[in-house]
Protein backbone atom coordinates (compact mmCIF):
# COMPACT_ATOMS: atom_id res chain seq x y z
CA UNK A 1 0.00 0.00 0.00
CA UNK A 2 1.39 3.44 -0.89
CA UNK A 3 1.80 6.04 1.84
CA UNK A 4 -1.12 8.22 2.88
CA UNK A 5 -1.98 11.09 0.54
CA UNK A 6 -2.85 13.27 3.50
CA UNK A 7 -1.05 13.05 6.80
CA UNK A 8 -1.71 15.37 9.74
CA UNK A 9 0.17 14.81 12.98
CA UNK A 10 -0.30 16.32 16.41
CA UNK A 11 -2.51 19.20 15.27
CA UNK A 12 -3.28 21.82 17.86
CA UNK A 13 -5.30 24.98 17.35
CA UNK A 14 -5.82 27.78 19.83
CA UNK A 15 -8.22 30.67 19.33
CA UNK A 16 -7.08 33.03 22.06
CA UNK A 17 -7.78 31.09 25.27
CA UNK A 18 -9.86 28.47 23.48
CA UNK A 19 -8.04 25.22 22.82
CA UNK A 20 -10.04 23.87 19.87
CA UNK A 21 -7.81 21.08 18.57
CA UNK A 22 -5.90 19.10 21.18
CA UNK A 23 -3.51 16.92 19.26
CA UNK A 24 -5.28 15.36 16.29
CA UNK A 25 -3.65 12.75 14.04
CA UNK A 26 -5.33 12.09 10.71
CA UNK A 27 -4.06 9.81 7.96
CA UNK A 28 -6.04 9.49 4.77
CA UNK A 29 -5.18 6.94 2.07
CA UNK A 30 -5.56 7.61 -1.61
CA UNK A 31 -9.16 7.05 -2.83
CA UNK A 32 -10.40 6.84 0.75
CA UNK A 33 -13.60 8.58 1.87
CA UNK A 34 -13.34 9.67 5.48
CA UNK A 35 -16.34 11.02 7.34
CA UNK A 36 -15.85 13.26 10.36
CA UNK A 37 -18.76 13.58 12.78
CA UNK A 38 -19.13 15.14 16.19
CA UNK A 39 -21.12 17.69 18.18
CA UNK A 40 -20.82 21.38 17.33
CA UNK A 41 -17.71 22.83 18.89
CA UNK A 42 -15.94 19.47 18.72
CA UNK A 43 -13.31 20.95 16.38
CA UNK A 44 -14.24 19.02 13.24
CA UNK A 45 -14.64 22.08 11.00
CA UNK A 46 -11.47 23.61 12.42
CA UNK A 47 -9.63 20.38 11.66
CA UNK A 48 -10.86 20.49 8.07
CA UNK A 49 -9.95 24.16 7.69
CA UNK A 50 -6.43 23.47 8.97
CA UNK A 51 -5.95 20.88 6.22
CA UNK A 52 -5.70 23.61 3.55
CA UNK A 53 -4.42 26.21 6.00
CA UNK A 54 -7.49 28.42 5.93
CA UNK A 55 -6.77 28.18 9.64
CA UNK A 56 -3.16 28.27 10.74
CA UNK A 57 -2.53 25.33 13.11
CA UNK A 58 -0.85 26.34 16.37
CA UNK A 59 1.26 23.18 16.32
CA UNK A 60 1.67 19.97 14.37
CA UNK A 61 2.48 18.93 10.82
CA UNK A 62 0.45 18.45 7.66
CA UNK A 63 1.61 16.74 4.49
CA UNK A 64 -0.57 16.58 1.40
CA UNK A 65 0.56 14.69 -1.69
CA UNK A 66 4.13 14.87 -0.41
CA UNK A 67 4.04 18.63 0.22
CA UNK A 68 4.80 19.90 3.70
CA UNK A 69 1.98 22.41 4.07
CA UNK A 70 3.40 24.22 7.07
CA UNK A 71 6.91 24.70 5.68
CA UNK A 72 7.68 28.39 5.15
CA UNK A 73 9.15 27.61 1.75
CA UNK A 74 5.97 25.94 0.52
CA UNK A 75 3.97 28.05 -1.93
CA UNK A 76 0.59 27.65 -0.24
CA UNK A 77 -1.30 28.97 -3.27
CA UNK A 78 0.24 26.28 -5.42
CA UNK A 79 -0.43 23.60 -2.82
CA UNK A 80 -4.08 24.62 -2.45
CA UNK A 81 -4.80 23.65 -6.06
CA UNK A 82 -4.30 20.05 -4.93
CA UNK A 83 -6.80 20.44 -2.09
CA UNK A 84 -10.32 21.29 -3.18
CA UNK A 85 -12.76 22.68 -0.63
CA UNK A 86 -16.54 22.89 -0.54
CA UNK A 87 -18.19 25.13 2.03
CA UNK A 88 -21.45 24.94 3.94
CA UNK A 89 -22.66 28.25 2.47
CA UNK A 90 -21.38 27.52 -1.09
CA UNK A 91 -19.53 30.86 -1.27
CA UNK A 92 -20.03 31.21 -5.00
CA UNK A 93 -19.01 34.59 -6.40
CA UNK A 94 -22.38 36.31 -6.98
CA UNK A 95 -21.05 38.68 -9.64
CA UNK A 96 -19.89 35.88 -11.93
CA UNK A 97 -21.79 33.23 -13.89
CA UNK A 98 -21.43 29.57 -12.96
CA UNK A 99 -18.87 29.29 -15.75
CA UNK A 100 -17.02 32.37 -14.49
CA UNK A 101 -16.93 30.93 -10.97
CA UNK A 102 -15.33 27.72 -12.17
CA UNK A 103 -12.99 29.37 -14.68
CA UNK A 104 -11.55 32.07 -12.39
CA UNK A 105 -8.80 30.02 -10.73
CA UNK A 106 -8.11 28.11 -13.95
CA UNK A 107 -7.21 31.44 -15.51
CA UNK A 108 -5.67 33.40 -12.67
CA UNK A 109 -3.96 30.63 -10.72
CA UNK A 110 -3.13 28.11 -13.42
CA UNK A 111 -2.58 30.80 -16.04
CA UNK A 112 -4.70 29.17 -18.75
CA UNK A 113 -6.11 31.20 -21.63
CA UNK A 114 -9.77 32.12 -21.64
CA UNK A 115 -10.82 29.50 -24.22
CA UNK A 116 -9.01 26.63 -22.50
CA UNK A 117 -10.15 27.68 -19.03
CA UNK A 118 -13.76 27.87 -20.17
CA UNK A 119 -13.56 24.50 -21.91
CA UNK A 120 -12.26 22.92 -18.70
CA UNK A 121 -14.85 24.77 -16.65
CA UNK A 122 -17.61 23.38 -18.89
CA UNK A 123 -16.22 19.87 -18.43
CA UNK A 124 -16.29 20.33 -14.66
CA UNK A 125 -19.86 21.66 -14.77
CA UNK A 126 -20.80 18.69 -16.92
CA UNK A 127 -19.47 16.34 -14.25
CA UNK A 128 -22.00 17.77 -11.79
CA UNK A 129 -24.70 17.77 -14.49
CA UNK A 130 -24.98 21.53 -14.74
CA UNK A 131 -23.50 22.16 -18.18
CA UNK A 132 -26.83 23.74 -19.18
CA UNK A 133 -26.55 26.27 -16.33
CA UNK A 134 -23.12 27.62 -17.28
CA UNK A 135 -24.47 31.08 -18.09
CA UNK A 136 -26.57 31.42 -14.94
CA UNK A 137 -25.61 33.61 -12.01
CA UNK A 138 -25.64 32.06 -8.50
CA UNK A 139 -28.77 34.05 -7.64
CA UNK A 140 -30.60 32.29 -10.46
CA UNK A 141 -29.71 28.80 -9.19
CA UNK A 142 -31.20 26.70 -6.38
CA UNK A 143 -29.08 26.03 -3.30
CA UNK A 144 -28.40 22.50 -4.48
CA UNK A 145 -27.30 23.71 -7.89
CA UNK A 146 -25.08 26.35 -6.29
CA UNK A 147 -23.38 23.73 -4.18
CA UNK A 148 -22.79 21.56 -7.25
CA UNK A 149 -21.23 24.56 -9.03
CA UNK A 150 -19.01 24.98 -5.96
CA UNK A 151 -17.98 21.32 -6.32
CA UNK A 152 -17.23 21.93 -10.00
CA UNK A 153 -15.16 25.00 -9.07
CA UNK A 154 -13.00 22.80 -6.83
CA UNK A 155 -12.66 19.73 -9.07
CA UNK A 156 -11.83 21.81 -12.16
CA UNK A 157 -8.37 22.35 -10.64
CA UNK A 158 -7.88 18.55 -10.53
CA UNK A 159 -7.19 18.33 -6.79
CA UNK A 160 -5.78 15.19 -5.16
CA UNK A 161 -7.97 15.60 -2.07
CA UNK A 162 -11.39 17.17 -1.60
CA UNK A 163 -12.55 18.65 1.70
CA UNK A 164 -16.28 19.07 2.35
CA UNK A 165 -17.37 21.28 5.25
CA UNK A 166 -21.01 20.41 6.01
CA UNK A 167 -21.89 20.58 2.31
CA UNK A 168 -25.60 19.86 2.73
CA UNK A 169 -26.52 21.49 6.03
CA UNK A 170 -27.57 24.82 4.47
CA UNK A 171 -29.85 23.07 1.97
CA UNK A 172 -33.58 22.43 1.99
CA UNK A 173 -34.13 18.68 2.44
CA UNK A 174 -35.38 18.14 -1.12
CA UNK A 175 -32.16 19.59 -2.54
CA UNK A 176 -29.75 17.41 -0.53
CA UNK A 177 -30.06 14.42 -2.85
CA UNK A 178 -28.54 16.14 -5.88
CA UNK A 179 -25.46 17.22 -3.93
CA UNK A 180 -24.97 13.79 -2.39
CA UNK A 181 -25.33 12.23 -5.86
CA UNK A 182 -22.59 14.51 -7.16
CA UNK A 183 -20.38 13.54 -4.22
CA UNK A 184 -21.07 9.86 -4.81
CA UNK A 185 -20.06 10.16 -8.46
CA UNK A 186 -16.92 11.98 -7.43
CA UNK A 187 -16.15 9.17 -5.02
CA UNK A 188 -16.71 6.57 -7.73
CA UNK A 189 -14.24 8.41 -9.96
CA UNK A 190 -11.61 7.68 -7.29
CA UNK A 191 -11.40 11.06 -5.52
CA UNK A 192 -9.97 11.09 -2.01
CA UNK A 193 -12.47 12.88 0.23
CA UNK A 194 -12.68 14.15 3.80
CA UNK A 195 -16.27 15.04 4.67
CA UNK A 196 -17.57 16.83 7.76
CA UNK A 197 -21.28 16.09 7.73
CA UNK A 198 -24.13 14.44 9.58
CA UNK A 199 -25.61 12.74 6.52
CA UNK A 200 -25.64 9.31 8.19
CA UNK A 201 -27.28 7.53 5.27
CA UNK A 202 -24.56 8.73 2.94
CA UNK A 203 -21.86 7.86 5.46
CA UNK A 204 -23.17 4.33 5.87
CA UNK A 205 -23.40 3.81 2.12
CA UNK A 206 -20.24 5.49 0.92
CA UNK A 207 -17.71 6.10 3.70
CA UNK A 208 -14.67 3.89 4.22
CA UNK A 209 -14.11 5.23 7.69
CA UNK A 210 -15.98 7.35 10.19
CA UNK A 211 -14.19 9.50 12.74
CA UNK A 212 -16.00 10.74 15.83
CA UNK A 213 -14.57 13.90 17.37
CA UNK A 214 -15.41 15.51 20.68
CA UNK A 215 -13.67 18.20 22.72
CA UNK A 216 -10.95 18.74 20.13
CA UNK A 217 -9.86 15.11 20.03
CA UNK A 218 -10.61 12.03 17.96
CA UNK A 219 -12.60 9.82 20.33
CA UNK A 220 -13.18 6.83 18.11
CA UNK A 221 -12.87 5.78 14.48
CA UNK A 222 -13.65 2.78 12.32
CA UNK A 223 -15.79 1.48 9.47
CA UNK A 224 -19.29 3.00 9.37
CA UNK A 225 -20.94 -0.26 10.40
CA UNK A 226 -18.82 -0.41 13.55
CA UNK A 227 -19.18 3.26 14.53
CA UNK A 228 -22.90 3.44 13.89
CA UNK A 229 -23.74 -0.15 14.86
CA UNK A 230 -21.50 -0.86 17.81
CA UNK A 231 -19.72 2.24 19.08
CA UNK A 232 -17.19 1.46 21.83
CA UNK A 233 -17.16 4.82 23.61
CA UNK A 234 -20.00 6.17 25.69
CA UNK A 235 -19.73 9.65 24.10
CA UNK A 236 -19.98 8.18 20.60
CA UNK A 237 -23.02 6.15 21.60
CA UNK A 238 -24.73 9.20 23.09
CA UNK A 239 -24.00 11.35 20.04
CA UNK A 240 -25.18 8.79 17.50
CA UNK A 241 -28.31 8.12 19.53
CA UNK A 242 -28.99 11.85 19.49
CA UNK A 243 -28.52 12.14 15.72
CA UNK A 244 -30.74 9.15 15.05
CA UNK A 245 -33.50 10.53 17.26
CA UNK A 246 -33.32 13.86 15.36
CA UNK A 247 -33.59 12.15 12.01
CA UNK A 248 -36.36 9.74 13.06
Amino acid at each position, binding site marked *: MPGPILEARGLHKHFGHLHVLKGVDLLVQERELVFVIGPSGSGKSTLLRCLNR*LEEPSAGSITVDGIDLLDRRTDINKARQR*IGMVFQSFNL*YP*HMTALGNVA*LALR*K*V*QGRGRAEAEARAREALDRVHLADRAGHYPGQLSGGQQQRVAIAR*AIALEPRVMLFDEPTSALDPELVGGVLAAMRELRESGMTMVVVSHEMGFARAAADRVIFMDGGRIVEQGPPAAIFGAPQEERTRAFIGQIERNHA
Partner: protein
Amino acid sequence: MTFDDFLQAFFSWEILEQAWPILWAGFLNTLVLSAVVVPLGFIGGVILALLSTLRSRWVRWPLIAWVDLFRSLPPLVLLVFVYAGLPFAGLEVSPLTAVAIGFFLNTGAYYGEILRAGIESVPHGQTEAARSTGLTALQALGHVVLPQAVRNVLPDLISNTLEVVKLTSIASVVALPELLFQARQAQSVTYNATPIMAAAVIYFVLLWPVVRLLSRLENRQMAGRR
Protein backbone atom coordinates in the same frame (compact mmCIF):
# COMPACT_ATOMS: atom_id res chain seq x y z
CA MET B 1 -36.65 97.36 -8.43
CA THR B 2 -38.99 96.82 -11.36
CA PHE B 3 -39.48 93.48 -13.01
CA ASP B 4 -37.53 94.70 -16.01
CA ASP B 5 -34.64 95.68 -13.76
CA PHE B 6 -34.72 92.22 -12.25
CA LEU B 7 -34.62 90.56 -15.66
CA GLN B 8 -31.83 92.85 -16.75
CA ALA B 9 -29.77 92.07 -13.62
CA PHE B 10 -30.14 88.25 -13.71
CA PHE B 11 -31.32 87.13 -17.15
CA SER B 12 -29.83 89.53 -19.69
CA TRP B 13 -29.42 87.84 -23.05
CA GLU B 14 -27.03 90.52 -24.17
CA ILE B 15 -24.75 90.02 -21.17
CA LEU B 16 -24.92 86.26 -21.62
CA GLU B 17 -23.78 86.55 -25.21
CA GLN B 18 -20.83 88.68 -24.14
CA ALA B 19 -19.88 86.42 -21.24
CA TRP B 20 -20.45 83.10 -22.98
CA PRO B 21 -16.90 82.50 -24.31
CA ILE B 22 -15.49 83.11 -20.81
CA LEU B 23 -18.11 80.88 -19.20
CA TRP B 24 -17.58 78.14 -21.76
CA ALA B 25 -13.83 78.15 -21.11
CA GLY B 26 -14.62 77.91 -17.40
CA PHE B 27 -17.01 75.03 -17.98
CA LEU B 28 -14.35 73.12 -19.93
CA ASN B 29 -11.85 73.75 -17.15
CA THR B 30 -14.34 72.43 -14.60
CA LEU B 31 -14.69 69.26 -16.69
CA VAL B 32 -10.92 68.86 -16.94
CA LEU B 33 -10.51 69.56 -13.24
CA SER B 34 -13.14 66.95 -12.38
CA ALA B 35 -11.49 64.48 -14.73
CA VAL B 36 -8.26 65.01 -12.75
CA VAL B 37 -9.48 65.13 -9.16
CA VAL B 38 -12.15 62.39 -9.26
CA PRO B 39 -9.77 59.61 -10.41
CA LEU B 40 -7.06 60.99 -8.15
CA GLY B 41 -9.33 60.95 -5.09
CA PHE B 42 -10.64 57.52 -6.05
CA ILE B 43 -7.13 56.11 -6.35
CA GLY B 44 -6.30 57.63 -2.96
CA GLY B 45 -9.44 55.97 -1.61
CA VAL B 46 -8.53 52.58 -3.05
CA ILE B 47 -5.08 52.82 -1.47
CA LEU B 48 -6.58 53.69 1.93
CA ALA B 49 -9.21 50.94 1.66
CA LEU B 50 -6.59 48.35 0.73
CA LEU B 51 -4.41 49.43 3.64
CA SER B 52 -7.41 49.11 5.94
CA THR B 53 -7.65 45.39 5.09
CA LEU B 54 -4.25 44.85 6.72
CA ARG B 55 -4.63 43.78 10.32
CA SER B 56 -1.36 45.20 11.62
CA ARG B 57 -1.71 47.91 14.25
CA TRP B 58 1.28 49.69 12.67
CA VAL B 59 -0.94 50.36 9.70
CA ARG B 60 -4.25 50.64 11.50
CA TRP B 61 -3.62 53.58 13.84
CA PRO B 62 -1.79 55.86 11.39
CA LEU B 63 -4.55 55.11 8.89
CA ILE B 64 -7.31 56.12 11.30
CA ALA B 65 -5.39 59.29 12.18
CA TRP B 66 -4.90 60.14 8.51
CA VAL B 67 -8.55 59.62 7.55
CA ASP B 68 -9.83 61.48 10.62
CA LEU B 69 -7.53 64.42 9.93
CA PHE B 70 -8.53 64.91 6.32
CA ARG B 71 -12.21 64.35 6.99
CA SER B 72 -12.13 66.94 9.77
CA LEU B 73 -10.27 69.68 7.88
CA PRO B 74 -12.51 71.91 5.75
CA PRO B 75 -11.41 71.35 2.14
CA LEU B 76 -11.13 75.09 1.61
CA VAL B 77 -8.71 75.41 4.53
CA LEU B 78 -6.69 72.49 3.21
CA LEU B 79 -6.50 74.03 -0.24
CA VAL B 80 -5.46 77.46 1.04
CA PHE B 81 -2.84 75.83 3.24
CA VAL B 82 -1.33 73.88 0.34
CA TYR B 83 -1.41 76.87 -2.01
CA ALA B 84 -0.57 79.77 0.31
CA GLY B 85 1.03 78.00 3.27
CA LEU B 86 3.52 75.59 1.69
CA PRO B 87 5.47 78.36 -0.12
CA PHE B 88 6.67 79.43 3.34
CA ALA B 89 8.39 76.04 3.49
CA GLY B 90 9.93 76.71 0.11
CA LEU B 91 7.36 74.61 -1.75
CA GLU B 92 5.80 76.67 -4.51
CA VAL B 93 2.93 74.87 -6.20
CA SER B 94 0.80 75.85 -9.18
CA PRO B 95 -2.94 76.30 -8.62
CA LEU B 96 -3.69 73.02 -10.40
CA THR B 97 -1.11 71.11 -8.34
CA ALA B 98 -2.47 72.65 -5.13
CA VAL B 99 -6.01 71.62 -6.05
CA ALA B 100 -4.85 68.12 -7.02
CA ILE B 101 -3.02 67.65 -3.70
CA GLY B 102 -5.92 69.03 -1.67
CA PHE B 103 -8.48 66.83 -3.37
CA PHE B 104 -6.27 63.77 -3.21
CA LEU B 105 -6.06 64.21 0.57
CA ASN B 106 -9.65 65.27 1.22
CA THR B 107 -11.74 63.22 -1.19
CA GLY B 108 -9.34 60.29 -0.95
CA ALA B 109 -10.28 60.02 2.73
CA TYR B 110 -13.99 59.98 1.87
CA TYR B 111 -13.70 57.50 -1.01
CA GLY B 112 -11.51 55.39 1.27
CA GLU B 113 -14.16 55.18 3.99
CA ILE B 114 -16.87 54.31 1.46
CA LEU B 115 -14.76 51.59 -0.13
CA ARG B 116 -13.77 50.23 3.28
CA ALA B 117 -17.45 49.87 4.17
CA GLY B 118 -17.95 48.14 0.81
CA ILE B 119 -15.14 45.68 1.44
CA GLU B 120 -16.49 44.93 4.91
CA SER B 121 -19.95 44.25 3.42
CA VAL B 122 -18.58 41.29 1.45
CA PRO B 123 -18.81 38.07 3.50
CA HIS B 124 -15.47 36.60 4.56
CA GLY B 125 -16.48 33.29 2.97
CA GLN B 126 -15.91 34.91 -0.43
CA THR B 127 -12.24 35.47 0.35
CA GLU B 128 -11.93 31.97 1.82
CA ALA B 129 -13.44 30.37 -1.27
CA ALA B 130 -11.09 32.32 -3.52
CA ARG B 131 -8.03 31.53 -1.39
CA SER B 132 -9.00 27.84 -1.24
CA THR B 133 -8.65 27.66 -5.03
CA GLY B 134 -5.13 29.09 -4.85
CA LEU B 135 -5.77 32.76 -5.54
CA THR B 136 -3.36 35.07 -3.70
CA ALA B 137 -4.74 37.55 -1.18
CA LEU B 138 -4.37 40.34 -3.74
CA GLN B 139 -6.07 38.33 -6.50
CA ALA B 140 -8.94 37.46 -4.18
CA LEU B 141 -9.32 41.14 -3.38
CA GLY B 142 -9.13 42.25 -6.99
CA HIS B 143 -11.30 39.62 -8.67
CA VAL B 144 -13.73 38.63 -5.94
CA VAL B 145 -14.02 41.18 -3.13
CA LEU B 146 -13.58 44.60 -4.78
CA PRO B 147 -16.09 44.11 -7.62
CA GLN B 148 -18.75 43.16 -5.06
CA ALA B 149 -17.66 45.91 -2.68
CA VAL B 150 -17.96 48.60 -5.35
CA ARG B 151 -21.37 47.30 -6.41
CA ASN B 152 -22.60 47.33 -2.81
CA VAL B 153 -21.61 50.97 -2.25
CA LEU B 154 -22.20 52.30 -5.76
CA PRO B 155 -24.81 54.88 -4.67
CA ASP B 156 -22.42 56.24 -2.03
CA LEU B 157 -19.58 56.39 -4.54
CA ILE B 158 -21.74 58.31 -7.02
CA SER B 159 -23.02 60.60 -4.29
CA ASN B 160 -19.46 61.39 -3.22
CA THR B 161 -18.43 61.98 -6.82
CA LEU B 162 -21.26 64.47 -7.14
CA GLU B 163 -19.94 66.31 -4.09
CA VAL B 164 -16.42 66.28 -5.50
CA VAL B 165 -17.50 67.82 -8.81
CA LYS B 166 -19.41 70.53 -6.95
CA LEU B 167 -16.40 71.08 -4.70
CA THR B 168 -14.16 71.84 -7.70
CA SER B 169 -15.66 75.36 -7.47
CA ILE B 170 -13.37 76.05 -4.49
CA ALA B 171 -10.48 76.06 -6.98
CA SER B 172 -11.63 79.59 -7.75
CA VAL B 173 -9.95 80.81 -4.56
CA VAL B 174 -6.54 79.87 -5.95
CA ALA B 175 -7.39 81.65 -9.23
CA LEU B 176 -7.83 78.49 -11.22
CA PRO B 177 -10.12 79.62 -14.06
CA GLU B 178 -12.88 77.05 -13.61
CA LEU B 179 -16.57 77.81 -14.07
CA LEU B 180 -17.23 79.77 -10.88
CA PHE B 181 -14.02 81.80 -11.21
CA GLN B 182 -14.86 82.70 -14.81
CA ALA B 183 -18.41 83.62 -13.85
CA ARG B 184 -17.10 85.95 -11.13
CA GLN B 185 -14.73 87.54 -13.65
CA ALA B 186 -17.53 88.07 -16.13
CA GLN B 187 -19.78 89.41 -13.39
CA SER B 188 -17.25 91.99 -12.25
CA VAL B 189 -16.50 93.11 -15.81
CA THR B 190 -20.14 93.39 -16.87
CA TYR B 191 -21.36 94.51 -13.46
CA ASN B 192 -24.30 92.13 -13.85
CA ALA B 193 -25.43 88.90 -12.12
CA THR B 194 -26.33 87.08 -15.33
CA PRO B 195 -22.98 85.23 -15.61
CA ILE B 196 -23.39 83.87 -12.06
CA MET B 197 -26.92 82.80 -12.90
CA ALA B 198 -25.64 81.12 -16.06
CA ALA B 199 -22.94 79.29 -14.11
CA ALA B 200 -25.57 77.98 -11.69
CA VAL B 201 -27.67 76.74 -14.62
CA ILE B 202 -24.63 75.05 -16.18
CA TYR B 203 -23.83 73.24 -12.90
CA PHE B 204 -27.44 72.17 -12.65
CA VAL B 205 -27.61 70.87 -16.23
CA LEU B 206 -24.34 69.02 -15.73
CA LEU B 207 -25.22 67.38 -12.41
CA TRP B 208 -28.98 66.93 -12.42
CA PRO B 209 -28.85 63.75 -14.58
CA VAL B 210 -26.38 62.30 -12.08
CA VAL B 211 -28.73 63.18 -9.21
CA ARG B 212 -31.60 61.42 -11.04
CA LEU B 213 -29.45 58.35 -11.68
CA LEU B 214 -28.50 58.30 -8.02
CA SER B 215 -32.12 58.41 -6.88
CA ARG B 216 -32.99 55.52 -9.16
CA LEU B 217 -30.06 53.46 -7.88
CA GLU B 218 -31.00 54.18 -4.28
CA ASN B 219 -34.61 53.20 -4.88
CA ARG B 220 -33.52 50.01 -6.56
CA GLN B 221 -31.24 49.14 -3.65
CA MET B 222 -34.05 49.77 -1.18
CA ALA B 223 -36.26 47.44 -3.21
CA GLY B 224 -33.49 44.84 -3.27
CA ARG B 225 -33.21 44.95 0.53
CA ARG B 226 -36.90 44.29 1.16
